[in-house]
């Protein structure tokens, strides 16, 4: 398992190669990349995001993410997983987060990847501040993120 909180950007091909290593029993890798959206509303370009500042709780973040992966491992057959989350100042269109899950079969890889993202969004101590034409704004949590996490509790 690789969990990294870092300022630097990441390269998807490199991370997938590290995730696969020399293993020959991996048939499926599901991955997710989150990006800084500049345009969040086609109607109101005054809300366009120039940049985003990401803060986190060093020490707790790594533990929270490892615990989320552990939960996923209990539910699905995972071979290995990578989580990279960037912190600091990110410009529009930059990569924020990578979650990649390797498995023998795609069903497990997809489900575990989405599960990890949904829990990361609601349980890992990261906070986003957007810089727009209006100034700086802390981002509010979305109701849909809570709902996305809840559906895993009802499933299975």
């Amino acid at each position, binding site marked *: 398992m690789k969990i990294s909180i870092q300022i630097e950007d990441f390269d998807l091909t490199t991370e997938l190669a590290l995730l696969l290593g020399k293993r020959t029993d991996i048939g499926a890798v599901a991955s997710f990349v989150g990006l800084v959206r500049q345009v969040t509303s086609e109607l109101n370009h005054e809300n366009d995001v120039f940049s985003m500042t990401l803060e*986190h709780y060093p020490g*707790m973040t790594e533990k929270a993410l490892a615990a989320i992966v552990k939960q996923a491992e209990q539910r699905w057959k995972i071979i290995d997983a990578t989580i990279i989350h960037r912190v600091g100042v990110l410009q529009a269109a930059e990569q924020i987060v990578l979650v990649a899950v390797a498995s023998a079969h795609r069903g497990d890889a997809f489900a575990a990847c989405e599960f990890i993202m949904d829990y990361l969004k609601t349980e890992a*101590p*990261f906070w986003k501040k957007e810089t727009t034409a209006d100034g700086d704004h802390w981002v509010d*949590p979305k109701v849909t993120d809570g709902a996305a996490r809840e559906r895993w509790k009802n499933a299975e």
Partner: protein
Amino acid sequence: MMIKVLYFARLKESLNYSTEEMLLPSNIKTILQLKTHLSARGDAWTAIFSGKQVVRAAINHALVDDTEVIKVGDEVAFFPPVTGG
């Protein structure tokens, strides 16, 4: 008893506090009691800790409820709902 208290994100900015060593009054046992105690520190503190805002808490890097009991040497953290990813 001494504990460490950390504040993050919106809380850190409006309180202008990121971390402090605190001598916890002996009548304060739980997270909720600590929140009430902190809310008496002034307007910015009242706005955050009087219960009108959602403030999540962690003890020693694990999310906890308001009923959780604080022990000596604990690292207590307060922060707004998370928004990563």
